[in-house]
C-alpha cells in the first residue's frame, strides 16, 4: 500500500504532510504521557517485527501479493490509535529513506493511510467488536481486516484526487486486492495478540497511570 512519489503531485502531497504532522504531534504527546520503562522496549520490538513482516510479501492469488500493515496491531496491543501513528511513522521513514519503499514527498499520505486510518479504524473497531463477539482475538482479526481495507480505499480516493487512478476502477481493484490482503492482516493480528496475551497478559491491561506514577 506504499504510495510512490510519482503518484501524487507535490501540492497535494504537502497537504497530506500537514495533516500527518498534526497526528505525529499528537502521537508524540501520547508517547510522552503513556510510555514508560516497561512499554518502550515493547514498542521498539513491535516496530522491528512490523518492519520484518512488511518485508514479507505473501501471495494472495490474482497475480498479487500483500503483507501486514500493522497499524491495528500496534493500536490494539498498546491501547491507543496514536501508538500506530507513532510506530508506523517511524517504520515508514526508515522504509522510505533507506529502502526506497514508499515515496518521500508522499510519505504524509502513507502515514495517514497506514498509521492514522489503520490505527484508528483498527482500535475503535476492536473496542466495538470485542464485547459483541466475545473473543478478543477474533475481534482483533476483524478489526485489522477492516483497517486494511478502509486504508486501501482511502489511498485509492487520494490517488483519484491526484489524477492517477480513475475513481471506480481504482476503488474496485484496491478494495478487491486488500479484501484478500486483509485476511493476512487479520490472521497475523489475531495470532500476535494471542501470543502476547499468553506470555504477558498484563501488558495489554496495564493501567498506564498506575505504572508510571
Amino acid at each position, binding site marked *: 500500500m506504499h504510495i510512490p512519489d510519482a503518484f501524487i503531485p507535490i501540492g497535494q502531497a504537502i497537504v497530506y504532510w500537514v495533516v500527518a504532522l498534526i497526528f505525529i504531534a499528537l502521537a508524540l504527546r501520547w508517547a510522552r504521557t503513556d510510555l514508560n520503562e516497561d512499554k518502550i522496549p515493547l514498542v521498539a520490538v513491535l516496530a522491528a517485527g512490523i518492519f520484518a513482516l512488511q518485508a514479507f510479501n505473501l501471495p494472495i492469488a490474482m497475480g498479487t501479493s500483500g503483507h501486514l500493515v500493522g497499524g491495528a496491531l500496534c493500536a490494539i496491543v498498546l491501547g491507543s490509535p496514536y501508538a500506530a501513528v507513532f510506530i508506523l511513522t517511524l517504520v515508514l521513514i*526508515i522504509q522510505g529513506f*533507506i529502502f526506497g519503499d514508499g515515496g518521500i514527498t508522499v510519505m504524509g499520505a502513507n502515514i495517514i493511510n497506514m498509521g492514522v486510518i489503520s490505527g484508528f479504524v483498527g482500535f475503535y473497531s476492536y473496542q466495538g467488536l470485542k464485547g459483541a463477539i466475545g473473543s478478543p482475538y477474533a475481534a482483533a482479526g476483524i478489526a485489522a481486516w477492516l483497517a486494511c481495507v478502509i486504508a486501501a480505499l482511502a489511498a485509492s480516493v487520494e490517488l483519484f484526487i491526484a489524477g492517477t487512478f480513475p475513481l471506480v476502477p481504482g476503488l474496485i481493484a484496491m478494495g478487491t486486492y486488500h479484501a484478500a490482503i486483509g485476511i493476512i492482516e487479520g490472521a497475523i493480528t489475531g495470532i500476535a495478540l494471542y501470543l502476547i496475551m499468553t506470555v504477558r497478559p498484563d501488558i495489554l491491561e496495564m493501567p498506564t497511570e498506575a505504572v508510571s506514577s
Partner: protein
Amino acid sequence: MMEIRQLIIVGVVLSLLIGVTAVFFASGDPDGLESTALFVQGEKTLTGESPEDGDAEAIGAGTFEYEAPMPDYTLGEDAGKPGEVLAVVAGIVIALIGVFAVAKAATAGKA
C-alpha cells in the same frame, strides 16, 4: 510469566527469522497498490496474473526522484541474496534502535 527482557529477545529473534525467511520466500508479485496501477493501465485483468515486465509506476506523473541507499531491500544486484539478508537485518536493527531512541527522547525529562 515471561520477563520483559525475555520478551524482547524472543521478539527480536522472531523478527530476524521472519525477515530472513522473507528474503527467500516472499512473493515477487506486485502488491495491491501496484496491481491496481497495472489494472487501471489495462496491463492486468482484475483477477488475472500480473505481467512479468509490467511497470506499475508508469502511470505516475511526479517529478521527484530519490535514490535510496538500499533500494528494494537490496544492496544492489551484485550483492545477491546475501545482500538482501544484510539489508533486511539492517532494517530490523535500525527499526528497533531508532524507535527505542525516539521513544526514549519523547519521554525524556518526564516527571
